[in-house]
């Protein structure tokens, strides 16, 4: 088992009232799964992804990740954990505008103190694999949306994470680009990477091995 959420509650106080963003979420995810989280806007998809990605906290409940209890962990260890095992892919790609394709992909390696020759090899592999060698010196603004997301995925994969979290990865793409990205996810999943994606689209959700429905912060089993 990769991770487990037990009775997770997350809320914010607004005008003296508690507004629940997540309530009573229970979830077990095994390695190698490809999960799609679906639900309307505001149902808590992103929040759940952020909690799983340890970017955001929660008020109640337990979260175990690879046998370690995240909810009792200090901030510092938590960020160490997610940096080690989790890669993120965003709807808005979130590439660093000032860096080239090559440098964007290389950045996570820099933060892991990997030496220069190894970095070169890893980035070259990744460029090869995604067929973007010819674009390595371009800046994000010179790429199409689909290409940018490709770089985003490549960057998420460069540190060989166990888990990829993708928040509406195709939300800004047209249908052809979407399909390419989803195809890519499928391949990655077949290679053993666990993927959790949040999506609006039934088509995309169908790529997953399991679909999770959310409504108003709760799991919706209907």
């Amino acid at each position, binding site marked *: 088992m990769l991770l487990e959420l037990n009775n997770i509650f997350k809320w914010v106080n607004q005008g003296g009232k508690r507004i629940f963003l997540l309530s009573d979420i229970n979830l077990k995810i095994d390695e190698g799964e490809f999960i799609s989280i679906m639900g309307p806007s505001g149902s808590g998809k992103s929040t759940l992804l952020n909690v799983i990605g340890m*970017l955001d906290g929660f008020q109640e409940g337990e979260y175990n990740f690879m046998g370690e209890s995240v909810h009792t962990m200090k901030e510092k260890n938590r960020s160490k954990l997610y940096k080690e095992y989790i890669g993120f892919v965003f709807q808005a790609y979130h590439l660093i505008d000032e860096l080239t394709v090559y440098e964007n992909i290389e950045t996570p390696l820099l933060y892991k103190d990997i030496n220069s020759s190894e970095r070169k090899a890893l980035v070259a592999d990744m460029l090869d694999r995604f067929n973007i060698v010819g674009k390595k010196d371009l800046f994000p603004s010179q790429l199409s949306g689909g290409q940018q997301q490709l770089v985003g995925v490549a960057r998420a994969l460069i540190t060989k994470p166990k888990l990829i979290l993708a928040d509406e990865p195709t939300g800004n793409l047209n249908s052809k680009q979407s399909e390419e990205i989803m195809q890519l996810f499928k391949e990655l999943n077949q290679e053993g990477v666990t993927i959790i994606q949040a999506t609006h689209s039934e088509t995309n959700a169908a790529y997953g091995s399991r679909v999770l429905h959310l409504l108003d912060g709760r799991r919706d089993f209907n």
Partner: protein
Amino acid sequence: MIRNYFKIAWRNIRSNKLFTALNIAGLAIGLCVCMILFSFVNTELGFDKMYSNSEDIYRVNMETSEEYNFETWATMPNAVGPAIAQDIPQVKLMTRLIKDDFGATASLKIGDKNFTENRLYLADSAIFKMFDFKFLEGNSNDAFSKPKSIVLSQSAKIRLFGNQDAMGQLIIVNNINTLQVSGIYADLPKNSVMDIDMVYNIMDTWMGTNVYWSNASYETYLQLEPNSNVSNLQNQATGLIDKYVDKDNQYFTKFIFQPLTEIHLHSAHVREAYSSKMGSITAIKSLLFLSLLVLLIACINYMNLATANAQKRAKGIGINKVLGANRRQMLSLFYVETGIMVFLSIAIGYAVSFLTLPLFKSITGNELSYQDLLDTPILIGLLIIWILVTLVAGSYPAISMSNISPLILVNKSKKKGSASELIRKGLVVFQFAASIVLIIAVTIILQQMAFIKNRNLGYDPNGIVAVSVKSAETEQQVESLIKGLERLVNVESVSAVQSMPGANESGRSVYKMATDGTGLPIASCRTDGNIVNTLKLKVIAGNELPETIPEGDSIIYSLINEKILNYLDYKTPEDAIGKIIHTELGSMAIITGVVENFNFNSLKESVGGYMYYKSRKAPEGIRTLLVRYNTQDLSKFMSQLQQTFNEALPNTAFDYQFLDRHVAQLYASEEKTASTATLFSVLAIFIACLGLFGLAAFTAEQRTKEIGVRKVLGATVTGITRLLSKDFLKLVLVAFVIAAPVAYLIMRNWLLDFAYRTEISWWVFAFAGIAALCIALITVSFQAIKAAMANPVKSLRTE
């Protein structure tokens, strides 16, 4: 890793053109000013440290008695030096130093050419060893071995002799003293109080040989044995007063050994020194303070602009954090960026400082050369400034931004604004408060300068030229000159005097009783001619001085001012007329008239006692003609004047000074303060405006959506401009409230230096406030109008 930081930082700098330009401009201006000032301060602090025995050289100062208000004087009787050198064995070398003719301009005659000279000194021969004179011709041992020798600095030699050989040539000083050139020395260091242009042997004159303990006119320098106990020796020297001077004649009570290296900057309280190179440690301190203030304002700009930019940068930080960057790495990224920016600013500022050096010189009147900007301490200083400014300016943005959570990427959490918003506002308030203080200060300084210039001095210095006749060969020459001048159409009146007001009067004392030990120190000035008419003095009792004094009349006719009158306790001015006045002039002095007080000294001092006297047997000579003229064509008049002068005194250099300029000269240092303060406040305000401009741009950008919505709902351009400007103007108001009392206190203190001062009036504050407000409004509204004019469809779509 570090390479990557540089890459990101550099690309960030380049992609944000406005931000970068504003930042670099602000920092570069601040740094340029700082560098110029630091090199100025560096030169000032380096004064007199170049001599091989600098550490052991002292100037003897003396503390006077109560009669002279316990003033400290740099000049003393010529007996002091020899006595100290003789009685205190730790004194290795001693020299007295006095300007020729007590500091009056000398007239030099070489062949048939006349020159004027202001820095002709007399000294003992020890001066060459003490101050490391480097002889280019002749040598220090033989320079004074022949009587009547004179040595010249290289530049003096070139001025007087050009490329011709000067050794052995004769120079006639003031038409009485013929000296022979016996040596040429390399010019003394620029940053030394020793401003000797030429020097001859004091032992060739009565000044060196005829030692006495009364008249104090001689500076005295000592070189002590290394590691001497200075305070001990100082006490020994003071002990000599009792040994050599009668109790009754002790008008000085203590000798103080002032280290040579402190003379330049720490002599504000020391009077009567000869050197023209006097600095002031307070001026240095205030310049340093001002430059640090400007630098701080520039740093604040950087912080402000950087944090305002945070919203834009937040995404990048979030991504980096998600990709595994930690806080420390983000801190380094920001510091690297700041470091690059500051480096660019320093490079630009440094380059610009070379270009603006002449401007700086003309505004502040401070001497500074390009070489001074290349001095090692300055280069080290640059490095220190670089590091310091990077740390200070980079601190707040780096710390606040490295804290940004990666959540910024996913749920647009922008709530982290309030604290940094407050700090940013605080910084703007600080900048503007500082600017407003400067505006107020400058206004009051200028007001005070105008007040001084327009104040009725009690005499009219305008339209008077003072012509030196002290080097006339005979009295007949002077008389014929006076006659010649009186014939000129544009001359209204000519008075022959010992000194123009406040220059070379004789210090005397007025006693209530002939037997009194102490009296009122006054300035006494011999005159022939109608001084009341020439200076436009106002007689309040008695008469002017008689036009002629018959043969055999030994009375000393005197004209006193109210200050003396009051000291003498006469009930009315009329009571004083015809009474004897007790001074060192003897018992024949009679009060002929009383004039209104007039400010013969700077208005920083209150009026002192002043006495004009006329006598057939005057102890002082006639040295100056005061010529009151009335002409539209001054240059023509001056050439007529010179022609008349040359006809009457063919062997004397024509040396003159306009009295009004002489008076203005008294406030030269205040003028300098005024122009320096003006320069700084303009710069401070400009830099603050750069920051405000950037901030307004970012705020407008931040509120693009709000503006769009408001416009769709029907807001007008004026309405939106007002909305955006209002917040900034509030900050300026707050700044004003803080600045006004601070400025009031500072300036009230500054004005205390003047015996006569202007009132600090409310309108100065109103003016400063309104000026700051207008400047801020213009800066901000530019951005606000731009934002308000934008098409709302565009701004709403981008969100």
